[in-house]
């Protein structure tokens, strides 16, 4: 069984079917790039994986654990969702950093709250029994992540004083602070000025070499080709084509994939 198994996900909003039958799998350490035109359901798919939307049908299985099953009501409770969603992380198109917190606090806020709860419930967080020790560990880990995304010197800045590219790198570090099994990116560079996309894409490249499992929705076809182990082309709520970058991008079978890629090549990629 694969590390991530997504089986027959269906999602409608009222009468609009947005995800019609999505199944795919991903191995640990692999990078999946999802491409497709706007409105094809890419964001909705990532939101389903992160439990921001609840699919009507289907199953999501990570590492053998069934996190979601459309036929199992108990998987839909608030507390089950809160526990299960931490297998996934999500980096938003427009960052959504917390403006009133410093960069470092953006990273430490959620882990600190988690540590508090765990110490209260089970007496320990990562083997530490006091909040003081936990805070120290959380801060150290956050600082390491800031170094990883190259922003340690912005540790005490507020988000409003960072460029878009820097904000997105902070958002990536913030998601990593919770150590998700699978990190999802929803068009992480499309809210950025063109000259700032490179720094963000480089951070994602860096994560690949440290063996993170990732799902990246992107319009950067060249980047997807370089970084992804696997590409999915989505069209109108279906997976139209999937395979290696060589198969899907260099030698697409489907007419729709060819059409979509032709539109990108026009701009002289």
């Amino acid at each position, binding site marked *: 069984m694969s590390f991530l198994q997504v089986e027959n996900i269906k999602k409608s909003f009222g009468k609009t079917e947005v995800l019609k039958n999505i199944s795919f799998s991903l191995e640990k350490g692999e990078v999946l790039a999802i491409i497709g035109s706007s409105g094809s359901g890419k964001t909705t798919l990532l939101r389903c994986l992160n439990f921001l939307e609840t699919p009507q049908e289907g199953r999501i299985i990570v590492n053998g654990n069934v996190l979601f099953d459309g036929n199992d009501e108990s998987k839909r409770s608030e507390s089950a969702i809160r526990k299960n969603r931490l297998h*996934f992380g999500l980096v938003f198109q427009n960052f959504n950093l917390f*403006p009133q917190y410093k960069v470092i606090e953006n990273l430490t806020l959620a882990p600190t709250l988690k540590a508090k709860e765990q110490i209260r419930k089970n007496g320990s967080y990562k083997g530490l029994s006091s909040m003081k020790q936990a805070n120290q560990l959380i801060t150290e880990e956050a600082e390491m992540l800031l170094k990883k995304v190259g922003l340690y010197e912005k540790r005490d800045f507020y988000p409003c004083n960072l460029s878009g590219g820097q904000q997105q790198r902070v958002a990536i570090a913030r998601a990593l602070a919770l150590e998700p099994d699978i990190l999802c990116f929803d068009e992480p560079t499309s809210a950025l000025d063109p000259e700032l996309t490179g720094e963000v894409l480089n951070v994602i490249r860096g994560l690949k070499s440290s063996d993170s499992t990732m799902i990246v929705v992107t319009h950067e076809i060249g980047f997807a080709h370089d970084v992804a182990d696997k590409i999915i082309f989505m069209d109108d709520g279906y997976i139209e084509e999937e395979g290696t970058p060589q198969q899907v991008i260099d030698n697409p079978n489907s007419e729709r994939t060819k059409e979509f890629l032709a539109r990108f090549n026009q701009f002289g990629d």
Partner: protein
Amino acid sequence: MEQFFNVTGELLVGFSQNCEIFALTLLMAIPLGLIISMGSMSKFMPLKAVVKTFVWIIRGTPLMLQLFVVFYIPSLVWGISFNRMTAAIIAFVINYAAYFSEIFRGGIESIPRGQYEAGQVLGMSKSQIFFKVVLMQVVKRITAPMSNEIITLVKDTSLARVIMVPEMLKAAERFTMQGLIWPLFYTGVFFLLFSGILTLLFGFIEKKLDYYKI
């Protein structure tokens, strides 16, 4: 000169009533306003409808009329009567809570959905998201409209005279009846001083919250 001190003393006694109404109204209308704003954002439609109607009635009728209603209606209908000050405070609290609730609702609804979703995907609970992420941003957004309302409240307290609360304007009117006009205008000084202090205070709070932008 002696007359001046005499008048000032009398007016200050009246002004203490204005201050009492002001302080008690603030103290109670803010939490009540928060509760009303929750009701007006409720997904339970009947509750939402009731709360919205309530807010409409309170905001759609003069505060002066509401003072009369609270003071006279209970005694006419049930034979119970509040003392004047209590009636005034009840009317003020209800009136201001309705206005505050709309400010709170506006502030809460202006926080982008992405802030809630970012908290959710980081595994935070609903109350953690509200208290740790949303609340401070709401406070920042509502400081300006709240300071407006609160400064209006300072001046509105003088309306309590319509149900014979011996507040400052009432005291000044007594002098007028004795043929002394200037104390009436002199009351303006007290209101100006009070609202001036509040303006400085709110300016200070806004500066304090200026360290980040939303």
